[in-house]
């Protein structure tokens, strides 16, 4: 220990903690890992097994549903054709499955925490530094413990993705609920509504556009983690990017990278289209109908 005045053995503590977790809670992590892997395998099967044009058309139809215009579905079909044409279809579907499972888990955790944080100042004060930590800690740092706990494969990548992508989901849910006109919430209280009812009938509907912006951010951040997932052995586009880096294969890198971009654009447009309509606009659409 060269010339430090004092040395905090933080690294040793962290290593000890991981060792302790592995030895005592190993079984728990095994179960979690199995569940995650099963979800991922199932979704990959559904996406990659049918012929590419079937899946492509279904995804394009989803785009049509989200935004009733012709540009998005046509663009999607075109993009998927390119992915197929550069021979990245199976990789792209594996990546899509990973992103969807990781995002679903992140959202399932983020929204309830966001709701709690919006309603309770203490929860908000506690979650904020934790979220900062999760978002700014270099992903490689917690990738290693994840690999130790869950072994190489798709699961540590997924766990790293969830941790990294969680923060905007929590933040935007909290923000969205806090932004709801406090007088309207007060009106709910003044007429004797239960907190649960106020949440369901006033806060969530009115916060929905902001919450959906959070969901969109979660998905986009998940996608940005595919390369890192590829590093620890998750199949998909990330793995090809990593391989192109290791073998200096410019062609493969460009092809896999382009597939990531197309996937990102598709997911972004579709999720933002689903989330852009506020509760007020939806009400307007139904009263006019």
């Amino acid at each position: 220990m060269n010339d430090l005045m004092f040395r905090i053995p933080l690294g040793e503590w962290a290593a000890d903690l991981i060792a302790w977790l592995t030895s005592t809670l190993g079984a728990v992590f095994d179960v979690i890992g199995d569940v995650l892997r099963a979800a991922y395998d199932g979704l990959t099967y559904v996406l990659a097994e049918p012929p590419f044009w079937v899946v492509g058309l279904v995804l394009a139809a989803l785009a049509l549903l989200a935004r009733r215009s012709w540009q998005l579905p046509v663009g999607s079909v075109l993009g998927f054709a390119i992915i197929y044409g550069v021979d990245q279809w199976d990789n792209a579907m594996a990546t899509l499955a990973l992103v969807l499972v990781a995002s679903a888990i992140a959202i399932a955790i983020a929204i309830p925490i966001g709701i709690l944080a919006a309603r309770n100042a203490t929860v908000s004060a506690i979650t904020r530094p934790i979220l900062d930590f999760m978002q700014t800690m270099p992903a490689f740092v917690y990738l290693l413990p994840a690999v130790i706990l869950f072994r190489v494969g798709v699961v540590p990548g997924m766990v790293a993705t969830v941790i990294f992508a969680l923060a905007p989901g929590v933040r935007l849910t909290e923000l969205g609920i806090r932004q709801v006109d406090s007088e309207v919430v007060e009106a709910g209280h003044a007429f004797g509504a239960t907190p649960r009812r106020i949440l369901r009938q006033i806060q969530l509907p009115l916060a929905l556009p902001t919450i959906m912006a959070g969901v969109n951010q979660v998905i986009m951040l998940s996608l940005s983690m595919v390369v890192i997932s590829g590093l620890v052995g998750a199949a998909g586009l990330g793995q090809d990017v990593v391989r192109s880096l290791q073998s200096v294969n410019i062609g493969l890198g460009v092809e896999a990278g382009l597939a990531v971009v197309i996937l990102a654009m598709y997911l972004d447009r579709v999720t933002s289209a689903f989330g852009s309509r506020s509760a007020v606009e939806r009400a307007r659409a139904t009263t006019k109908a």
Partner: protein
Amino acid sequence: MAALRAEGVYKVFGRRPAEAVRRLQAGESRDEVKNHGTAAVIDASFEVEAGETFVVMGLSGSGKSTLIRMLNGLQPPTAGRVVLGDADLSTVSAKEMRQIRQKRVSMVFQHFALLPHRTIIDNAAYPLALQDVDRTERRRRAGQALEMVGLGGWEDHLPSELSGGMRQRVGLARALAADTEVLLMDEAFSALDPLIRREMQEQLLELQETLGKTIVFITHDLNEAMHLGDRIAMMRDGRIVQIGTAEQILSDPANDYVAQFVADVDKTRVLTAGSVMVRPAAVVTSGAGPRVALHEMREAQASAAYLVDRDRTLRGVLRDEDVVAAQRAGTESLVELTRDEVTAVDVDAPLSDIFAPSAESPLPVPVVDARGRLVGVIPRVTLLEAMAPNDTGAAVALPGAASPEVVAAPSPGSTDGAAS
């Protein structure tokens, strides 16, 4: 029993509210306890009778919004009690509190606080939905409430499609649909244009006439307070400095602050004929003859007298020259001699309604009660005096302060001239 009662209510925001209340109770000022917390409401006590419109008037920061929120438990008081009917709000459970808010006290908000994603009818029906009234019934009752505020036909629109005034009507309809005995109105008309505000005030007065709710109305607009309130509580820096009717506050302000505040008020709209009238000098009953009338006028040193029936119903005005002529002609009946020279005004008429009759004739304007009986007169000088700017109103209500040519001495049997 009062519909609503506040007993020594305090609300302090900040780190050590209990300590702040203890010091305030010991006589320290709001500034002295600043380090312990911000005292929003200090020792507020009042009772609101059933069917009364009680206005809490104060500038922003005077604590009036906090006060009204303690009346339905949206803000729990730091100390003191709020009693709504028979329920002490400080002792009820959260569930009972919701019951009370559903059934007994509703609220109208400054910025309307409508649910922007629900239609007008659903907004009006919102309290009923919370009470688990079934859908057809609550639509029917919400529809009735909307009709009451003149919004029939707008049921299926969204709040964003309505003007500010209409939105607040929805807010009012929502509170009426809840059908609670007590209605809290927090600066309900403050966000509206002056013309719309006036319209809403009239509508509220009209509705109140038939519904007879117990209303607590918060405002920073003194004219609004005077116009709507049966009684007014003046608030300053968290304390209620005076409670009284509009006339009491105008004519007898509790301190310089209130006096200064009411100095700008348009007194002609607030003061009524009854508050400035004086006793009529010369009154003659219709059975008397010209001789009696002339005697009466001579005694009063007046050139005219008011002719009344035995039950003091006003018949008209007698001029001295007419009576003298009649005496010479030997006529005995006075009734034929009366002139309609001066229009009588109602005892509750605001001063602004008295200018026209007062301008028509140099004679004092007779004031009659609801059954047409003469209860007083308003000489022009009295009217002008009531309007005098630097006059806080204290002198206004004093009878006999004016000495016009007609009024000289009280006539026997006349009613109390001035209400104070």
